[in-house]
């Protein structure tokens, strides 16, 4: 985060608060759906709840421990990483939902991730050249 992006006004940055609340609420509901559906499908609700709660604690601890380091990561890099991950999982699970068989089953998510990383790096280089040329 750059200095120009830091809140310098009085009190709480309510725009940031609402954006963070929306993001956490949306992802939280998604996680709740995943925990409930996986737990019910496997008939192992206690294990699913324990896994979800452990992930929550670990994520909060990692976020607190590395907050300073995370704040130094440029926003554009975070957007790129999250975008590549969401595209990978989105591609994989949407085709799973259609009943498509992947060549290596669940392991196909790794080459798919590598493929999207290569494409993202390639497009980033092309865009940098365009910015320099512009």
């Amino acid at each position, binding site marked *: 985060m750059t200095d120009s992006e830091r809140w310098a006004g009085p009190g709480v940055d309510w725009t940031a608060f609402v954006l963070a609340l929306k993001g956490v609420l949306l992802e939280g509901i998604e996680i709740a759906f995943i925990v409930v559906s996986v737990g019910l499908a496997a008939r192992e609700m206690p294990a699913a709840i324990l896994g979800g709660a452990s992930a929550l604690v670990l994520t909060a601890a990692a976020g607190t421990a590395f907050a300073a380091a995370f704040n130094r990561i440029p*926003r*554009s890099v975070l957007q790129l990483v999250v975008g590549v991950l969401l595209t990978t999982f989105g*591609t994989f699970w*949407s*085709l799973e939902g*259609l009943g498509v068989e992947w060549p290596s089953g669940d392991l196909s998510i790794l080459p798919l991730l590598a493929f*999207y990383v290569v494409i993202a790096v390639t497009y980033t280089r092309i865009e940098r050249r365009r910015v320099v040329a*512009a």
Partner: protein
Amino acid sequence: MRTALSRVARGVGAFFRFWYGFIVGDDWTVAAAVGAALLLTAALNQRGIVAWWVLPLTVVAATGASLRRTPATRPQA
């Protein structure tokens, strides 16, 4: 009364703008291409044709085309 109505209209507009931004995003052509790729994948899969490659290639092509149409700007730090 008019103020209340315009507040409701703004709220409804913001609601739909949020979902449009969430589902479609910056470039509707990418969303349309992904939707078409999913339909094509489903059709090919129903006929027993291996179709897992359709969506990744469409994502790459649609994103590349979208970037080409977008003016080059410096990313925010």
